[in-house]
């Protein structure tokens, strides 16, 4: 313990200025660029009125930027030490929101915190990556082969996944499980255990389907045959595809895409924001946006490969996977590739919860990058 304290005091000597120098400002600029795309798209979503969503979006991004940079300067050793606190808080919020949820319908998964709303399941995704990275950061290859060592982290994944399923929020539960799987994989869990689990999932899926809520089942069935319920969930997919497709190569131009059918799109400012970008700026704009989002993911991998400690590596993989899943699920959803699931496009969609948690995650990522050469103690066998 004394040794740790010495390390912490030493790091303070490193100074804020030198840390400031090590922040990857290009990445921060990239994030601002993505948020700017969101600003433009939300301007459109507000039918040419920037006050409707866009201004709030900009304000929220500014707020989250401050939070992200504040976290970036926190010593990575401190983050490692208190990772379990972050995880425990997220878990507690998840439980709280579940009990709180019995009162109001629909809005039960939210908590109001300052200028943004927080969805505890979103926070959980970040904190799960953090908690698992902290658990595995000293685990040797031999240790990863020990099934007993894998039981606590498995519970760390399964308990929140169960809680989120109970909300019920199938999509987020699956995504949370996938983030957990990514960290397990990167930490070195044997591949045959993965194969075993995949097999178990294949068996469990039909049983799980039996227990789904009606609306969740409807999402899956309309995905398989969108025309079967043209005014229900499938309707959104059809309208979304028409909007996307009609964008063509160059798009219809800024604010020119607000044709009647777009008004059929529910949640166009949240889940279907990508549709607006693709319609007004065409394939060019859509692909450019995709490349910027890809650059964000690539940066996560850069942090992972450059980190000299396993904690930073695993954290970066977990957070990168989280961001990737947001992007993939959302774009796949609006292009009709997977069932509609209520997943926003991070930093672009309207709504504070995803942005806040994603930016908290990037704060942790930046801290890992800024302190990538920190000494986090030796490995255990």
């Amino acid at each position, binding site marked *: 313990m004394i040794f740790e304290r010495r390390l912490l005091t030493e790091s303070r000597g490193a100074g804020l200025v030198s840390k400031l120098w090590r922040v990857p400002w290009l990445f921060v600029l990239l994030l601002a660029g993505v948020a700017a795309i969101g600003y433009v798209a939300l301007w459109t979503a507000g039918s040419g009125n920037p006050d409707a969503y866009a201004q709030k979006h900009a304000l929220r991004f500014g707020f989250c930027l401050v939070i992200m940079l504040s976290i970036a300067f926190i010593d990575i050793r401190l983050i490692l030490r208190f990772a379990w606190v972050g995880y425990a808080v997220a878990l507690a919020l998840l439980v709280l929101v579940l009990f709180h949820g019995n009162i109001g319908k629909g809005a039960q998964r939210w908590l109001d915190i300052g200028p943004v709303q927080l969805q505890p399941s979103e926070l959980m995704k970040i904190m799960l990556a953090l908690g698992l990275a902290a658990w595995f950061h000293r685990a040797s290859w031999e240790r990863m082969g020990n099934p007993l060592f894998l039981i606590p982290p498995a519970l760390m994944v399964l308990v929140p996944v169960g809680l989120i399923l109970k909300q019920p929020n199938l999509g987020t539960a699956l995504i949370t499980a996938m983030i957990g799987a990514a960290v397990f994989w990167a930490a070195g869990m044997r591949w045959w255990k993965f194969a075993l689990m995949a097999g178990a999932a294949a068996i469990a899926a039909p049983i799980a389907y039996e227990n789904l809520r009606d609306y969740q089942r409807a999402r899956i069935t309309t995905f398989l045959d969108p025309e079967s319920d043209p005014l229900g969930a499938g309707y959104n997919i059809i309208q979304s595809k028409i909007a996307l*497709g*009609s964008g063509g190569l160059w798009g219809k131009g800024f604010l020119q895409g607000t044709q009647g059918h777009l008004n059929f799109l529910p949640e166009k400012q949240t889940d279907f924001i990508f549709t607006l970008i693709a319609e007004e700026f065409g394939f060019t704009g859509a692909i450019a946006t995709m490349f910027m989002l890809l650059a964000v993911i690539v940066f996560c*991998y850069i942090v992972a490969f450059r980190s000299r400690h396993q904690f930073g590596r695993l954290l970066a993989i977990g957070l990168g*996977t989280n961001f*990737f899943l947001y992007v*993939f699920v959302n774009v*796949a959803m609006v292009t009709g590739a997977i069932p509609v699931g209520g997943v926003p496009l991070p930093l672009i969609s309207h709504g504070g919860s995803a942005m806040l948690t994603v930016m908290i995650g990037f704060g942790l990522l930046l801290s890992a990058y800024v302190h990538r050469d920190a000494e986090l103690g030796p490995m255990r066998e």
Partner: protein
Amino acid sequence: MKFWPGRRASGFGANTNIKREEERRRTIFTRRAALLGTLQLGALGFLGHRLYRLQIEEGRRYATLAEENRVSARLFAPPRGRILDRRGDVVAGNRLNWRALLVAEQTADVTATIETFSRIVPLQDHEKARIERDIRRNRRFVPVILREFLSWEEMAAIEVNAPDLPGVSVDMGTTRIYPETEHLAHVLGYVGTPTEQDAGEEGLVHLPGMRVGRAGLERFHDRVLRGRAGAVQVEVNAVGRVIRELDRREGIPGQDVQISVDTGLQKAIRNKIDEGTTAVLLDARNGEVLAMATKPSFDPNIFNSGVSAAQWRQWTASRSTPLINKATNGLYAPGSTFKMVVALAALEAKVCRPGDIVHCPGHFDFGDTRFHCHKQSGHAGMNMRTAIAQSCDVYFYEMARRTGMDKIAAMSHRFGLGVDLDIELPGTRRGLVPTRGWRQAQGHPWNIGDTIVHGIGQGFYQLTPLSLAVMTARLATGRAVQPHLTRAIAGQPLRGGKPEDWPSLGIPEADLRVVRESMWAVVNGGGTAGSARLPGQYGIMAGKTGTTQVRRVSREQRERGFNVANLPREWRPHALFVAYAPYDNPVFALSVIVEHGTSGSGAAAPLARDILVEAFQRLPITPAPRDPRVAELGR
């Protein structure tokens, strides 16, 4: 803590070993992360390809779909279920309503269209503001109401000017109507325009003319009454004209709800009572609410078309609170009507037998406090039956002292006092029967003096007229009947209609009989309500009077020969009466509260008799054989 070993633990050899292991771990990580990254890149590549196919390869097809034909969804509100009374008469129904609608996406200039419309059918400024708000709030294909309740002339004018009114259409909707106006307002509640919070998962909120229950049964049964919206999917051309209908889903009309109230009886009672009076009449056998009348009331039809600010101010500022259902939300001290509960608590606690005599000298001294009986000269020797019949206060001061407040409160809860009654009227107050714990939680001690005062139903009690009627029904039947209003939904009768549906209270029949005989004597055996006897052909009523002070009577006033009749009206005591009838086979249970009615026997009891006579005349009940014991009791 075992994951934090000190560095000292590792020797030199271990160090190189660890370095090698670390290298190995890193290699594995790099390999696996690269694989994961490739997978993710591939997934995004797949999406890129999908976008390419949609936007470039099939772009032209989709562009045609988007430009030439547009698929438009029209939702239509289902007719709201009706509410029928006991006899099947409609007490909340729907009436045709011709209205002008505007679909914002079908007109190039919304403001200009509204202006043109306003020249044909004049719109007030506040209406225009409402329309603009509705257009802002809704999606652009959702029709917004310009004006409801159009006359034939207005409809004709709109049709003639149709070319100048793009996006405007006239259609037939329905609107809520309450034929009984203010007579059933507190029971039925009212409907209003939905807010965002009402949206729920159905998106019903965005339908023009949609109404949701805001109060009373309309609110409680909103889901049942609402039904489900129907929808048509149509193909429209660039100017919004319907080319063909693609799909149609019929809505599900709301279901009818039948309630237990008899409208004729309810109206007759309301015509008998004055402002500030509340009467609740239950079917004692199963808890059905037969009438729930209070004055003043309001006309729920007004809510349907929107309440003006002036009207709202007048309602909310009025001291007589017309919007509040005093039967479920008015809180009163029960006064002497509570004495039956105290008597049963005393019997159960075995602190007295019904025949035990308590001497009443007109007052009850405890410590240095003197508690007065309503009869200054005193009742002399009293047993339980005479004490209830004469409403002797001293007897019940003594009983309360012997029994203790917590046991009295526990007994009152079994009779539905101060507990949730689960009636289908949202916002119903639970009321309060104080306990020692409740008072102590407020930071005050509970003294025996408090218990004594509470023995006669005065003090911290806050009870609704409904709960007093429930108490009476439970006294009459010995069963834990719950008050309820709903008899059937969509023609299916609900449970609770039969006496056997309700469990027994678990109070010995002998105890109940003492109390019932006492209540018989109140009316028929020289008790406080002798003047309120039922006319012979209707059988016999049992009851109990109550008079509750709204202001404390000081010692000087008492000495000077205090007379409540000289007080200003709002200082006079409330008058209460609870009753059931027929005595030997209870069917009706009733509570009456006359605010500032001065005395229970003078104001409330005769009114209760009149109400019961109405009930006997209007509702068919099977006459029961007379109980031979009844005649004996008079002596």
